[in-house]
Structure formats: structure tokens, C-alpha cells
């Protein structure tokens, strides 16, 4: 425990091998998220980014390697047990409960919590943090626009009072206006002390707000380093992220 704490790693993946049937997705992957940081995992299609997220959340079990959260091994735990330990999830494509109201969606985010008064407090706090969500609070989540849904998904994840929040492509499919808004919010959430692990295809955007970045290529971490260095690294621009063509 103290070992993990002293190094400041909140999340630590080591030696992860993952398979889908006979196809190997991850090859001895190592990855850390330090306490209080925003860490982004970059990579193209089929690089294994989303599977990394699933491994952390316990939706996919690795064949080898361990996932440690706050110094404790969570590799074999069920998804609900992992969530209960303080990890929040903003899934790919948001995955709101479309037939439930926005309010019900937010409260589902606090499903594992029993401290009712505190939940109500957090609920009010979310309405303050996401005024757009507050306006739509009694609408069915499925009727919201993509950007609004992304806000709800983030607020829903925060309702669990996570120490680490995992986001799978939070800017995917959003209008440019909402992309900026979402990035600002991620930075704001992080300032309040929540560590962030995000998977992104849009490298230049993600590196703007991240502290540290990893580049995943066909299941292997090909590059890693502080976000500022990665953003300037020509290898990133050329080899892994498609150069100028996709930037911004």
C-alpha cells in the first residue's frame, strides 16, 4: 500500500496481456496514472485504447498482468466492486440511460453510495458545475444533444465521488464548441482533485490539458512522456497521429 502511495501512482497497470479469443490486444503493457494528474492514452483505430479502459473497469479480464488502484490489486474484481472503490466511468459514446430522466441518470451515478445527504449535496454541486444539465434535468436523457449528453455522462460519473475518472473518447462526435467546453470541464474537474485517465484519438486536443501522455500502437506502448514534450515530438505528429492532416 505505502509503496504505491509513496510513488504517487493512483492507478498502475503492469505487464498486461489481453486477448479477444485468439487475437492478442495488449502485449505486456505498462501504464501509470499519478495522483492528481490528467493522463491521456493516444492511438489510432484498433490500437487497443478502449480495451485498456475495459481492463481498468474490469469489463475485460487480462490474461496476464495486474491492475493496481491506490496500491491494491483490483485485477480480478467485478466491475461494480471496482466502481465502488472510487473509479468513475464516462463510457465511449456516453451510454446514458436514454429512457430515464437526466436526474435519474445523475443519481444512478451515485448508485454505490449510501450517504444520502452527501449525494444530495453533490447533486446540487453538479447542477452548478453543469448549468446546461440543470436546464434539462427532467428531460429524458435520450432526447438531449450529443454535447449535452456528454455533460450528463461526466456529471453522472462525478456523482460517485471517484478518485479517478476514466473517460473513453470524451470529445468524439461533438461540435467544436462543445469540444472546447468539455476539455475545460475536464481540467476543472481535475483541479478539484480528481485524477483523470482519458482515451483519445484527437492527440493535439488531449495533450493541451493532459499532464502526461501515452501512445499505444497495436497493443504496445510506443511512446510516453510529459504532455508538453509529446506535443512537440515530431514522431507523434508523423508516425502515430497522422501528421498535420488530422491535427485540430
Amino acid at each position, binding site marked *: 500500500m505505502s509503496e504505491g502511495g509513496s510513488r504517487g501512482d493512483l492507478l498502475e497497470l503492469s505487464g498486461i496481456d489481453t486477448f479477444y479469443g485468439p487475437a492478442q490486444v495488449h502485449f505486456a503493457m505498462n501504464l501509470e496514472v499519478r495522483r492528481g494528474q490528467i493522463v491521456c492514452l493516444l492511438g489510432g483505430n484498433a490500437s487497443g485504447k478502449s480495451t485498456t479502459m475495459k481492463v481498468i473497469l474490469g469489463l475485460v479480464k487480462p490474461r496476464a498482468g495486474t491492475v493496481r488502484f491506490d496500491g491494491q490489486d483490483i485485477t480480478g474484481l467485478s466491475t461494480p466492486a471496482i466502481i465502488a472503490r472510487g473509479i468513475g466511468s464516462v463510457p465511449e459514446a456516453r451510454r446514458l*440511460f436514454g429512457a430515464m430522466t437526466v436526474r435519474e441518470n445523475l443519481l*444512478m451515478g451515485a*448508485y454505490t453510495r449510501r450517504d444520502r445527504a452527501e449525494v444530495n449535496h453533490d447533486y446540487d454541486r453538479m447542477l452548478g458545475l453543469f448549468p446546461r444539465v440543470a436546464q434539462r434535468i427532467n428531460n429524458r436523457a435520450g432526447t438531449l444533444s450529443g454535447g449535452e449528453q456528454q455533460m450528463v455522462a461526466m456529471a453522472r460519473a462525478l456523482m460517485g465521488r471517484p478518485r479517478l475518472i476514466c473517460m473513453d473518447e470524451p470529445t468524439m462526435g461533438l461540435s467544436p464548441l462543445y469540444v472546447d467546453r468539455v476539455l475545460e470541464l475536464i481540467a476543472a474537474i481535475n483541479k478539484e482533485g480528481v485524477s483523470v485517465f482519458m482515451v483519445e484519438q484527437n492527440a493535439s486536443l488531449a495533450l493541451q490539458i493532459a499532464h502526461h501522455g501515452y501512445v499505444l500502437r497495436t497493443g504496445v506502448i510506443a511512446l510516453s512522456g510529459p504532455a508538453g514534450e509529446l506535443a512537440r515530438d515530431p514522431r507523434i505528429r508523423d508516425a502515430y497521429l497522422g501528421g498535420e492532416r488530422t491535427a485540430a
Partner: protein
Amino acid sequence: MGAWLDYTINGLIVGNIYALLAVGLALIFGVSHLINFAQGSIYTAGAFIGWTCAQRLGTPLPVTMAAVVLGCAALGVVIERVGLRPLAGSARIAPLLATIGISFVLDQGLQLLYSPDPRSLPSPLPAWRIQVGRGTIGALDILIAATGLVSAAVLFGFLRFSRLGWAVRATAQDSEAARQMGVNTDAVNRTVFAIAAGLGGLSGLLVGMYYNHIDTAMSFQATLKGVVAQVIGGMGNVPGAIAGSLLLGLTESYGVALFGSSYRNLFAFVLLLIVLVLRPNGLFAGRQAMSPEPLTGTFIAPSRPWDVPRWAVAVCVLLAALLPFLPNSAYALQVLTNAWLYALLAISLTLVAGTLGQVSLGHAGLLLIGAYASALLALDSGLPVWLSIPAAGFVTAALGTALTWPAFRLRSHYVSIATLGIGEIVGLVILNWESLTHGPMGVTGVPPLTAGTVELDSPQASYWVALAVLVLLGLMQSRLLGTHLGRTFRAIRDDDVAARACGVSLDRYKGLAFAVSGFAAGISGAISAHLYSYINNETFTSQVSVLALTMVILGGMGNVLGAVIGAVALTGLPEVFRFTAEYRQLIYGLVLLLMIRFRPQGILGTA
């Protein structure tokens, strides 16, 4: 007028009973996209738990009801844990078939425990009736209505206001996202099964008291009615299930009022088909799109089939053909003749269920059409038997395809439900169309097998006829699988959207497959009719459809040789081991469950 009010009241009461069944089915479908075919068996179990409490232990009614709810809820939890949870992540058809297996096991278990004799379950309520307009309402009617209303209200409150209720709704909408909110979806499944089983059991108890009659054979009809009500309301839609149940109850009640009680089920299944074809999302779904069904190969487990060398098959056929020359083979011949006829049915089913991927549960209807066509052609039109049998094959191909045609636009579970309904409708039409089919009396004196002037009614001759037809049609079907047509069928199974994008007309190919399938099934039914010499509308019931599907799964979906092996195993083995008829269903159920769990691709593998 008074009579109409009575029929309305009766319809609403029966509708309430259906609602108790259908709500549970809707909850389960919502959470796990599974049609629980064991629901009717739980309903029967509820009736018998109630009987035990009321008649043996002499408990008062509230205690009886509580015992039924708790006992059945526990049963539901066990079913979920033992029968279904191990199948999480397997092909989508697997849990549906598992519930069919579970229902066989439960029904047979109850029959062994209580004997198949019907029992009376008198209502302990006072016998007064209130006059309402010109109709009357009794105490039991009020109890049933109150039970329905209270259950609906409690369920609504649970789903709307409780933490677990929210988890149920969230899981129904997106179970993976619900897990990421920390919802234990296993617990949700367990809860839903407990609620569904508790309500289903209560329904059985109330029905038993309403008709003052319970027996162990009432499960299947109860499942069907619950499923029909749920489809009318929209699969997985809980309020819809209640509305659908009331509508079904009223439709049946008015149908009975107009045409007589033998029309009750006909109305139910025709309503089912109409809704499936016109509003597959149910009457209350609005313009919502049909929920995405599995696209590629997830409905049936793919595998590499076992390659059995041709000479081995030829040797087996030769040995089978020589069997009648052995002394003392009469009993074996009788069993195997039956097996060959079942094998014909199985290769017919394996073409549509396995090769084409349309899991039909209505093949008993095809058998009935074939049997009646041949019998009536031979008896009433004087056609010689050797002509009436192939003619029956063509009649079945044409009629069967025409009847299933409305189901062609449906996919996966919906196909199974629709074909099940169609199979039931065939039996009910035969029952009610007296001028053509002799109605409930059945057809007696069906002439024995002949070819020209040669009598073929000896056990040896019947055996050879069945074997020869099986070999002929089996060879033809094997050849067909290797052709362009066979490949097209498999393409439709694996991804019908992609097949359509390649220019394949789904309707045309489905029609062709059902026609080929109908021909073989019709021949099987026709030969059976001439061997039995007496047939009626219950000669082949939906249980036969399910048995045929078990054979197909046992052998490997789509695998012709596998279908034959499955048929021989399931008709022959119980004879070899001299199991009594009582245990047979139990064995079928267990075989189905074990195969789905441990070898879903069947003995020879899916082809």
C-alpha cells in the same frame, strides 16, 4: 347485453391472470433479452404449491398466497443461477433454449411428485356474487382483480422509487453502462427472476382456484399466453404487458362468446400474428425503431463441423437396411421406423433453424398439414397412398411457406414466437374446420402404406419405406448445402443485412428454404398418418416442435447427418434404456440443458 357484460368481466379477469404472467416475462426480457419459456412451469409449480398448502396443510388463503409467492420466487432464483447465469456470453439462442429445457425438467418433476392426474383446487372464498348491471362479479373475481392491481402498483413503485428498481431499469437500458455505475447486474437478474416467478406462481394459484382445476400439463399454454400478451404490449415493456394481457383476455372472451370455446386459443394466436406482422414492437411502442437484434453470427454458435467420411455413412445405411433380416427385430424396427420419421422432421427443421438461422418452433404444424393432407387425399379423394404422400409433401411445402411468409420479415426471437404461434394455429384450424378435417373427432381409418398393388404395411416394409425416404431426402439436402443456394442460406443466417447488401432477396430465399423444409416435414407427417391409421389435431403438438429442435441441437444445427443422429439418439436411447414415458421429458430437458451448456455446437458441429 347482460351476457356481454359477463364476457367483458370474464375477459378482464382472465386478462389480469395473463398480466401476472406477462409482467414477469416483460421484466426478464427487458433486463436480459430472454424469453423465459419456463414461466408456465413456474405458474404450474405455483398452483401445486398452493394446492399443497391449502389442501394438505390447511393454511388460510393469505398464507397460501404468501407461500406460493415465496416458493416460486426461490425457484426463480435457482433457475437463474443454475440454468441461465452460466450461459452469459454464449450465443443468444442458448438461454432461450435453456429455459425450454428447464420447463421440461420442472413439468416432469411436478408430474413425478404429484402424478399427472388433475386435482381440484376449490376457492376458500365465500360464494356470493354481486349483480353489476346484468352481469355478476364474485369474490374470487375481485381477489384476482385486486391482486393484479396491487402487483402492478407495487411493481411500479419498486421500479420508480427504489434503488434496486432503478438498477433494474438502468440494466434494461444498457447493462454494460449499468455495471459501470456499480450496479451488480447479476443481482438485478436474480431480482427480476424472483419477481417474475413470484407473480407467475401467484397467477397459477389464482387460475387453479378460478377453474377449480389444476394439472401438470397446463404449463405450456400458460407460457404461450404470457408470451402472446407480452408481444402484444411490446417485448420488455412492463405497462404494455399489462395492457396487452387485458386486451388478450377480452379478445379471447369475445371470441368465445361469438364462436364457442374451441376458438379461444385461435383468437389468441391470430392476434399474436397480427401484432407481430404489423407492429412487431407491440401496440404501445409508438414509432420507436425495433431494438437492434444481433447482426453477425451471435444467435447461433459457429463451429467447424466434424467431417464424417462418406463410406462410413454408406456402411451405416447398409447396416440399417439389413436390420429387418435379423431375427427378433420387430421391436427395434418399430422404434427405428419412428426414429427415421423423426429424422425426416429433424432434417427439415435443421435446414431452416440451422442453415438459414430461422429457429422455427412451429414444425408440428407442418407435420399436421402433411398428415391431414395425405389422409384426406387418400380417404376423401380416393388418391392411392403412394401418390397421396408426395402430394402431401407438396401441399405442406406450399401451405407451410404461405403460412410462415408473414414471419419472414422478423428476426431471431420473433421468428421463434411467430412460428410457434403458426404451429398452434394450424392445430386449432384443424380442430375447428370440421367440414374438411372432421374436427375434434379426428380422421379414422387412414389406409395403410401401399405402392400400386403392393401392400407395405408389414413392420419391415414400413421400416424400409421410412429409411429410403430419409436417405433420399437427406442426400438431396446434403447436396443442396454445397451449392450456391446453400451458401446463400448460410449468408442470410450469418448476416442478413450484409446478404441483402449483396443483392440477396431475403423473402425469396426464406420462402425456398421453408418450402424444401415443408416438403420433408410433410412427407414425415404423411407417412406417420398412414402408419398410425388414426390422427387428430393433437397428434403433433408444439412439444413435438420443441423435441425436433432438441434433436437438431443435439446433432449440430444445420448438420443433416447430425439431425439424423439427434433423432435416433432421442427416440432410440429412451427405448434402449427402457425409461418409462414419465422420465422421457425429463431426459429431453436435461439433454437440452447439458448440450447448450457444454457443447452448444452439437455432436457433429454446426454446418
